Each structure stands twice: as C-alpha cells, then as structure tokens.
C-alpha cells in the first residue's frame, strides 16, 4: 500500500520547518499543504480541531499534532537515520532542552524583538544567558546529536535561522562569535548542511515579516 504522508504547514512557521527537516533527513516522500492562518482550511480544522495550528502530519489518514510530538512519531515510525538518542538519560536531556528552547529561550528572544532601549538591553542579556546554557549542551560536538544532526539540532533549528534575521532587524549581535563560539559554529554547520539548506524559507520575506511584527508590537506598547 502506498503510504499517504501529508504535511500542513505555513511558509514561515519554524515549528513546521522542524517536521520538514525530519522528513527530509529520513528521506521520506510527502505532500505539502500550505495554510493561510488567517483563513484556515476545513482539512486543517478537521485534523487539528483542538489547537487549529500547524504543523499537522497526516500519515495514512491519522493526524499527529505538535511539532515535537511529530518528531518523535517520525523517529519511531521510520527507523533509518535515528534522530533521538538511544540512551534513556540522553533522551531525557534532549527532551528537556527542546522544551527549554520552546519555552524560556524563545520567549527571551521574542522579548528582544519587541523591545527597545534599556528594556531591550535587559532582554538581550537574558537571551544571551539562555543561549549560553544551550551552548553548554554542545560541549565539543559538531551537532547536539553528535556527528550527525539529531532531534535537538532540529528542535533548535529555528535559532540558526531566525536569530541572524533578528540581528539584522535590530542591528545588534546576539550570538557573538567570541562570546558564544561553539553555538556560532553550530549555527553555521547546521545552516550549511545540504538537507537543511534547501528548506530555509526566503530570507527577505522573513525579514519583512519579523520587521512588521516588531513594529506592531512596539506600537502596542507605546500606546498603552
């Protein structure tokens, strides 16, 4: 039976991109459905009625939601190119740091995007602290997964893409090569990987999008 594999995503969603990365690394064929979140398709609402969000992976009619849950599903279903570590303790650490990335780290990066002046300075200091914690997990490895890209590299992938865009918009460096040398190298290695490289959304479009998000959030703060 031919496998049916569909991914509901948007062009820019970093969470959707995680699933794209995993599917490509595993060498899987799939159909992409691009969603417009301001006008969600009936299919998306049917497959993800609870959160109504992307990404959603549909495998032979069964919908899997939440990007990190999808990553684990993909890894358990297709055994080639394993993404998660085998060892339970290493696995627990990978899951812990992926969650940290999605909660503490991403909100601290968001705070840098939507602030300015003194507030932004403080936001940057907090973000850099969090980035230092991530860097400590790399130790001397090329990737968080070791020699090859794994679950945690994919989970952190958004940083390799979006932080440089943020830096361009605010004209300030967050990941300084001197202060965060290992993380800086990882971002380069991850971005240059041939499988990852082909998936990045168009950079100029992303800059426009995040610039607009910054401006609308700054305006909201000023008008309060």
């Amino acid at each position, binding site marked *: 039976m031919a496998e049916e594999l569909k991914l509901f995503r948007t062009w820019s969603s970093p969470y959707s991109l995680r699933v794209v990365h995993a599917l490509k690394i595993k060498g899987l064929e799939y159909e992409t459905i691009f969603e417009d979140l301001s006008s969600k398709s009936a299919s998306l609402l049917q497959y993800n009625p609870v959160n109504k969000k992307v990404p959603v992976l549909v495998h032979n009619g069964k919908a899997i939601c939440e990007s990190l849950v999808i990553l684990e599903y993909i890894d358990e*279903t297709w055994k080639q190119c394993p993404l998660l570590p085998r060892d339970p303790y290493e696995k*627990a650490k990978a899951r*812990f740091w992926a969650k940290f990335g999605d909660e503490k780290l991403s909100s601290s990066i968001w705070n840098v995007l939507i602030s300015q002046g003194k507030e932004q300075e403080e936001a940057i200091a907090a973000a850099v602290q969090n980035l230092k914690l991530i860097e400590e997990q790399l130790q001397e490895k090329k990737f968080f997964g070791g020699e090859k890209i794994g679950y945690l590299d994919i989970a952190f992938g958004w940083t390799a893409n979006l932080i440089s865009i943020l830096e361009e918009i605010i004209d300030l460096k967050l990941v300084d090569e001197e202060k965060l040398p290992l993380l800086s190298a990882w971002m380069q290695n991850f971005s240059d990987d041939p499988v990852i490289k082909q998936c990045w959304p168009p950079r100029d479009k992303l800059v426009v999008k995040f610039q607009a998000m910054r401006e609308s959030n700054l305006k909201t703060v000023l008008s309060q």
Partner: protein
Amino acid sequence: MASEDVKILGAWPSPFVMRPRIALNIKSVNYEFLQEQFGSKSDLLLKSNPVYKKIPVLIHGEKPICESLIIVQYIDEVWDSGHSILPSDPYDRAVAKFWATYIDDKWFPGLRTISRAEGEEAKKAAAEEVTAGLVLLEDAFIKCSKGRSFFGGEKIGYLDIALGCFLGWLRVTEKMGNLKLLDENKTPNLFKWAEKFSSDAAVKEVMPETGKLMDFAKVLLAKSKAS
C-alpha cells in the same frame, strides 16, 4: 541499574510530583522521597535543577532528570517491570503525548485561574473553560480507552497519570469555589475514571487526601493575600 539509588525531590501537595511517584509505583521501584520545605529550595534541588529550580526531580544514581512528563517517560524506558506506561503503537503514543501537552499547557492553567479569579463572573467563566476542556478530554478518553477502564486501556498509563494527578486539586477547587467541574452528566466516562484512578494501587498512597489538601490550599491563599 535497578540497584542504583533512586530519589525523588518533591512535595506531597504537588500534582507534578505525583506523576513520577505513580510511575515508580507501577514499576515497583523503591525510592527515597525527599520533601522540599515549603517556601525554600534545598541545595540539592538547586544543584539538580539549576535551570528551573523546580520539583519534581528524579535523581537516578548521580543523574538528575527534570520535568514531570519527561521523568515519567524516562522511568518507562529504564524499567520494564510492572507494565508499560506509554502505549506501544507510535500513533497511540503521539495521541497520548498530544493530550498530555494540552493538559499542561492549556487545561491546568485554566484550573489555576479559577482560584485566582476576582468576582463571580470571572470565576464562572474560568470554570466553564475547565469543564469545556474536560469535555474534550472525555472524547479523548472514549477514543483512547476503547471501552476499557483507563486512557491506557486495562491499566493506568501516561495520559491517566498526566490528568489524574490533578484530581486532588480539582476536588479542592470544586469545594472551595462551590463549583461542579467534573460533571457526571457532561463527562460520565471521566467521572467513573476519576474514581478508578484514585483507588488504583499505584496511585492511592500518593494522592493527597482532599481535606489535607484543602487546609494546605487555605494556607497558600492566606500567604498570597498577605504578600
């Protein structure tokens, strides 16, 4: 591995701490329960969970594992005694993990909102959201249990633990707010499940008694009003 030292850093009122304790009970693994003093954090906690400084933490040998649901998965992967906590089928696992995330990210914060709500209107609105969430979970229960007693089937599993740990606080919120949240009419399956879960051998001894929890909640409330 089973002969290595197993410790849980936690506190008896915490629903999150209940989760790994239930999991270890399912696996019949003996552990030392080190309780944190309310209002202060021990050196061991700060050393084992420097990022969040929160309970629970499982310390297995020298290895600290943090975040309650991550700990439960770790326990399931390390010990194969008792029964499996996560389903064996990848899709069923994904469904269980999805709902556990929903419970932690959306449903439980809603439960907390009730106790913090100012005024009857706000309390009523918050309660309605919690009940609406339980209706979704009732539907999930029907799909996951496939006619059996628990989300996990014949025996309690990951999703039972993820939701069941909040039953004590749910009951306290109902009593203190004079509300009905787990409604026998709206969510008949969950209503029955709640009883079965609470009396399960792996759960009974770690589920705080409602009266004791309510006394604790009153102390908490008084402290938060004073500050």
